[in-house]
């Protein structure tokens, strides 16, 4: 068998790259030994209503990777079509996607595909998310008609159309970042928004170059009016997709010929206007589509000055031609971008000259070049490149003042430094800003950049009823940040801060190789792929890191498209996905511990010559850090019965090694000199000049007049700790659930279809990573000195180190289409039928906390042991502790604490401060929130050929009922509750000219 040699050679050293090479050799072997027969098909794509040609439509055979683009006359030709049954699909902007099934036995010409323009005259117009039947993994697509009907404002709104989805609670863009989380929720362990990939026209909106945490991309800068469709992959995606753990959201913007479209939309907080036009550039010049959008959201209608603005531009160009030998080529290029962001500069309520402004500029470019070589050993090739650049400059200009001098610490090196004026020494580690008034302009300059190159080849081959498809590719990605980081416009007035330039942090380079084989044998279809990501992280302990991501999907057709129960299929999938870390994990911003070391009395002019001890916190990079990954499984079954279509998906996923952080403590002693030492000085205060020894911290006062000798001031020594964060891999978190969609078909008499979708979602996460904690910010030793003990806890120094939740969401949608009136009406009732959550306290499979008989107790109850028994006070101990004097000896806490209780009252009192206790009886109670629901109404009406209007009312009944919670055994109103969406309405108008 071809390729066996390679396997033997590399046995025992199966790195990712080598395995992929072996597979490629193996497949190449197959390719060289198998040849099949192909045919040519050709035809025209015509408008259904007048049989005019549809230009620039894409005709494709998705299963085989073949495609063609119609010319001006609507003609298309596809070569290399395998014999047998194929599904031909025609797509064109503004038209309903059309599929035609064809059995190819010989060269076939004269195929006619009739397409219809999208309009409400059609009975099939979709206004909900539609499951993509042809995909192996669970995925949904939301078309433009559905987006217009729901009056999409921001990408996160589309999640509500997924099974069990609920309406976005953010009613405007000025309320903060909007991130997508698939099969997970923000606030849970596992960085689910970070692990949800978002792509616009194939450009990944990576946040890996961010320094502000592990979060997904803020999607507010994506224009909503030029989105043609959104594809959401919640199942096990192809290995072509990497650097994610939760799934992929793919946004396709308008591309192709389209009329001049003007759209306006208004909501209580937001106004939007956009234009779009797509046209051909001569006969052979290709097609260019341009979109412009302006949206403005205000946070408070009563004070419409603080706003978020979006000014989006989208360009999409495509050109198809045939080269030598009639080989089809296609070039796609485009750019999307935004100039806008949040700002409060015009707020008349703010003090003159003060403002806050957050740029949210984005530029995303993509170019792809694909062709069909027509060779037996290679079907299609695609080369693409993307670039994603953001400018997230945050400016905050504020008015400052001080009655005495303000200290500004800029020192980067350890030591004691006395405050100096900027005029005296601009580079002094500690400066003082004189008393008075001034403006402070802080700028955080972050300019993430990532670009990628991608080469992908596809080989398809059919043998009788069976076929296989091989896709192999390589991808290179570079990620960096061209920003300057935080700085201040005027160095004389910069407060305590240290420069950390993002643009001096090395780029992260990743190379990914992937190969995926798809095999169809009669009713069975299997795809199996492997992806290897190699990350090169220069300038860090991580170096080159490799990871492997195998994924498998299988689908079996149980019943074909005949009979009462038909098109029944079952799907199974398993896959591993790796998420690369963000720069906030790889290159954490250095931090410093600054301790006030000298504080003489303030002089009459407000000047104070403070001295500080500066201690840089050494690099907290963790050489043991591993990349976060998820393993996920899903089983789906779907089919039709009579007029009903149903799908049911069971999924389970575990996020491993999530990026998180722990704190480490290092003891240190510093000297403190205060005014009491100065008071005893014989040198007159007017003649004093202070110096501090950088190494020892001893303060010397000198006589400017020289009359008296220098005096060393008395000091005291203080023992304390320097803390620093360190990135680590957290504990696993598990999610599983069931999603269903049932379309009950159309009630023809009423022109109404009913759909019921929903989800059951369960989550469980317990953080057990050992973390150090000390209450030094709240507690002192019994002798009044700074606290001296460090406790080491499993997961957290609070009583709860995890949580579990279960939720059943149900959405019933009634959609009435009246083609004669060009009207679609939909009513959607969103209900949360079951909403359960509970805090957890566990370690190594056992209960971590213990029951306290009374809130003030420190020792475990002698009678009660179950913290989940209901209405229990709960305490936890650290596993062990160390002290300032001996950080190496780990003393088991429980035993020592029990001993101290009997033998050493002082130690007992001090150790008691490491005991965490729940403040309330209900902390570990089960929280079952009673059912809540809200109804949304959407109406879209076309007025002739050229205009349409949409109206929506969210939470139309303005549900102000009450819900109960078993957590605190209380009731609360749904008014302004996050359990239901806010009541509001919107109106939009579209003109097609």
């Amino acid at each position, binding site marked *: 068998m071809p390729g066996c040699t390679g396997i033997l050679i590399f046995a025992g050293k199966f790195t990712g790259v080598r395995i992929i090479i072996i597979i490629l050799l193996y497949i190449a072997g197959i390719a060289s030994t198998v040849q099949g027969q192909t045919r040519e098909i050709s035809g025209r794509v015509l408008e259904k209503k007048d049989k005019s040609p549809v230009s620039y439509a894409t005709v494709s055979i998705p299963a085989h990777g073949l495609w063609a683009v119609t010319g001006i006359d609507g003609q298309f030709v596809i070569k290399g079509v395998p014999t047998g049954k194929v599904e031909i699909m025609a797509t064109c902007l503004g038209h309903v996607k059309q599929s035609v099934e064809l059995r190819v036995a010989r060269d076939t010409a004269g195929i006619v595909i009739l397409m219809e323009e999208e309009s409400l005259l059609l009975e099939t117009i979709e206004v909900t998310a539609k499951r993509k039947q042809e995909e192996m993994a669970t995925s949904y697509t939301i078309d433009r008609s559905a987006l217009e009907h729901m009056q999409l404002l921001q990408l996160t709104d589309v999640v509500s159309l997924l099974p069990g989805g609920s309406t976005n609670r953010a009613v405007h863009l000025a309320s903060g970042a909007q991130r997508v989380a698939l099969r997970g929720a923000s606030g849970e362990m596992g960085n689910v928004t970070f692990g949800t990939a978002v792509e616009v026209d194939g450009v990944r909106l990576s946040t890996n170059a961010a320094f502000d945490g592990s979060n997904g991309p803020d999607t507010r800068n994506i224009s909503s009016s030029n989105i043609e469709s959104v594809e959401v992959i919640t199942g096990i995606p192809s290995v072509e997709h990497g650097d994610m753990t939760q799934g992929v959201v793919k946004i396709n913007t308008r591309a192709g010929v389209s009329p001049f479209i003007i759209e306006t939309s208004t909501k209580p907080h937001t106004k939007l206007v956009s234009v779009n036009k797509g046209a051909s550039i001569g006969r052979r010049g290709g097609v260019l589509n341009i979109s412009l959008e302006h949206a403005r959201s205000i946070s408070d209608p009563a004070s419409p000055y603080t706003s978020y603005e979006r000014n989006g531009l989208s360009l999409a160009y495509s050109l198809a031609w045939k080269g030598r030998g009639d080989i089809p080529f296609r070039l796609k290029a485009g750019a999307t971008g935004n100039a806008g962001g949040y700002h409060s500069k015009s707020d008349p309520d703010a*003090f003159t000259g*003060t403002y806050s402004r957050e740029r949210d500029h984005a530029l995303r470019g993509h170019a792809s070049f694909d062709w069909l070589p027509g060779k037996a050993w290679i079907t299609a090739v695609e080369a693409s490149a993307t670039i994603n650049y953001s400018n997230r400059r945050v400016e905050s200009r504020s*008015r400052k*003042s*001080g*009655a*005495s001098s*303000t*200290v500004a610490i800029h020192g980067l090196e350890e030591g004691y430094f006395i405050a100096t004026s900027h005029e005296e020494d601009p580079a002094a580690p500690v400066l003082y800003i004189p*008393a*008075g*008034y001034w403006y402070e302009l802080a700028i955080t300059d972050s300019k993430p950049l990532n670009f990628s190159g991608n080469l992908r080849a596809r080989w398809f081959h059919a043998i009788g009823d069976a076929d296989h498809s091989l896709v192999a590719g390589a991808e290179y990605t570079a990620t960096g940040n061209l920003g300057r980081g935080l700085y201040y416009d005027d160095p004389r007035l910069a407060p305590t801060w240290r420069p950390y330039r993002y643009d001096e942090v090395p780029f992260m380079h990743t190379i990914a190789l992937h190969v995926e084989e798809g095999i169809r044998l009669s009713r069975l279809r299997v795809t199996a792929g492997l992806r290897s990501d190699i990350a090169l992280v220069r300038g860090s302990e991580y170096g080159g890191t490799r990871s492997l991501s195998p994924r498998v999907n299988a689908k079996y057709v149980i019943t074909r498209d005949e009979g009462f129960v038909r098109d029944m299929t079952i799907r199974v999938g398993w896959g591993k996905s790796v998420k690369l870390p963000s720069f906030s994990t790889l290159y954490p911003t250095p931090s410093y511990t600054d*301790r*006030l070391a000298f*504080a*003489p*009395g*303030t*002089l*009459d*002019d*407000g000047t*104070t010559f*403070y001295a500080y001890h500066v201690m840089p916190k050494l690099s907290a990079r963790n050489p043991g850090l591993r990349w976060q990954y998820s393993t996920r499984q899903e089983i789906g079954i779907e089919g039709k019965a009579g007029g009903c279509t149903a799908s049911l998906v069971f999924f389970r996923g575990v996020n491993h090694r999530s990026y998180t952080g722990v704190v480490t403590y290092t003891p240190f002693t510093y000297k*403190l000199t*205060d*005014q*009491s030492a*100065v*008071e005893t000085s014989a040198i007159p*205060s007017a003649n004093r000049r202070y110096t501090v020894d950088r190494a020892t911290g001893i303060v010397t006062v000198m006589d400017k007049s020289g009359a008296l000798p220098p005096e060393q001031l008395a000091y005291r020594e*203080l023992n304390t700790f320097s803390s620093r964060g360190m990135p680590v891999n957290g504990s696993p978190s598990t999610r599983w659930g069931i999603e269903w969609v049932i379309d009950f078909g159309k009630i023809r008499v009423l022109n109404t279809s009913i759909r019921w979708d929903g989800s059951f979602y369960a989550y469980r996460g317990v953080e057990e990573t050992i973390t150090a904690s000390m*209450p030094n*910010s*709240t*507690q*002192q*030793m*019994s002798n*009044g000195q*700074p606290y001296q003990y460090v406790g080491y806890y499993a997961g957290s120094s609070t009583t709860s180190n995890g949580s579990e939740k279960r939720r059943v969401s149900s959405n019933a949608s009634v959609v009435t289409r009246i083609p004669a009136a060009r009207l679609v009406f939909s009513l959607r009732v969103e209900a949360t039928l079951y909403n359960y959550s509970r805090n957890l306290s566990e370690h190594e499979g056992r209960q971590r906390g213990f029951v306290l008989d*009374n*809130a*003030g*107790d*420190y020792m475990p109850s002698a009678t009660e042991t179950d913290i989940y028994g209901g209405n229990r*006070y709960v305490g936890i101990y650290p596993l062990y502790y160390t002290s300032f004097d001996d950080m190496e000896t780990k003393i088991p806490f429980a035993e020592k604490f029990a001993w101290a209780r009997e033998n050493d009252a002082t130690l007992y*009192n001090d150790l*008691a*401060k490491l005991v*965490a*206790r729940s*403040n*309330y009886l209900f902390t570990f109670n089960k929280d079952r929130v009673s059912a809540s629901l809200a109804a949304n109404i959407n109406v879209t009406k076309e007025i002739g050929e050229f205009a349409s209007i949409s109206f929506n009312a969210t939470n139309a009944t303005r549900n102000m009922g009450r819900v109960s919670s078993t957590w605190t055994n209380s009731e609360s109103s749904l008014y302004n509750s996050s359990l239901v969406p806010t009541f509001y309405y919107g109106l939009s108008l579209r003109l097609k000219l």
Partner: protein
Amino acid sequence: MKKLIYLFTCALALTWACNDDEIEEYKTYPFSVQLVYPAGSDYSARAGVEVHLLNTVSGVAFDTVTNDAGRADFIVPAGVYELSATDVRSEGGVADIFNGVKSNITVTDTWDASTPVQLTLTVSRAGQVLVKELYIGGCQKDDGSGVFQMDKYVILYNNSGYTASIDSLAFGMIYPYNATGGDAYYDESGGLSYENAGWVPAGSGFWYFTSSVTLEPGEQVVVAINGAIDNTATYSNSVNLANDKYYCMYDIVNFPNTTYYPAPSAVIPTSHYLLSYRFASGNAWVLSTSCPAFIIFTPKETSLNIFSNNPETSDPTSGTVLTRKMLPTSWIVDGVDVFRHGAANNFKRAPAVVDAGYVDHIIGAGYSIYRNVDAAATLAIEENAGKIIYNYSFGTVDVEGSTDPSGIDAEASLKNGARIIYKDTNNSSNDFHLRSRASLKN
């Protein structure tokens, strides 16, 4: 000659007749008194306690003082007497007043002078030192950019007629820090859950004096809570707290936030620095600028250090970040519960035993919370005659605030040499008003 003999004889007879030892009416008797302090009292006999003996028939009064053993000795003629004594012991701003009265003591020939009269004293506690003024809301900055609030101060005042020692006096605040901070300590019936518990939840930390401080009657002490510097150079509406007589809260270790605590003016001696015990998170003792519940107290039967660092004294519902101490109400010398003017969600924090009312406060206008004058008590002091200034004009009634109903301008009267007695009914609604200008700006 006979005439001379006659006169001499008469004079002799008259002289003899006038010997009070022989004439019943003028015969004197030793009268000893022994002061008896209450059982279990921390105090015992001392020298110098004035003892007063009044002949209730003739009105003749005799005064003397005790010796070290608490004994006082008189020589008195026969008669019916009322014996009284008062011993004032002052500590931590509180005076323990020992009073004893014994009436209808008949001194005759049968008087047994060998046994001292036992005068049993009973103790009563009087609030000597009280919060005269609390300035917390700050003032407008000169450039109009907002409010400057790092100039808070409190003035303590000896309202009694006795010298007050405030060495052990401490400062605290009741949680929540703001009256508008929620109803965490309210029970289902809408009442304070600790109303009758004998404690209040004290937040953040405590401040204490580090040197001996005594206040004579009518004397006051200014304690800078923040910014013990001359704030007026930058903020002309603010106050100058750089004064060598002033005290200041300044603990460089526990609260090193130099915005709240710039190094005190060099003119303030370090002996005037108050230090702190911190038991909750934060690098500053963030007394509310709008609506705190401010208290002064004196620890009893334990030290402030032990009380502050003992985990058993923490409110178990408060956790480790916003730890609250269960401060006994019996320790509290004075308190003022402040509400934010115009806010609909003010919650009272001081139980009735500490402060039965509240005072409304307006933030950022340079206003201070100032105690009303007890007009009757003040006018009853004879020495005040001609020294009282009326027509008080610093009220804030024109801005929905309040004013001193006595009409007496306390600060002007003090400067005029008067001794002001402030109202102390344990009810801030009666005892305080909102002053339009901090008294230190006068």
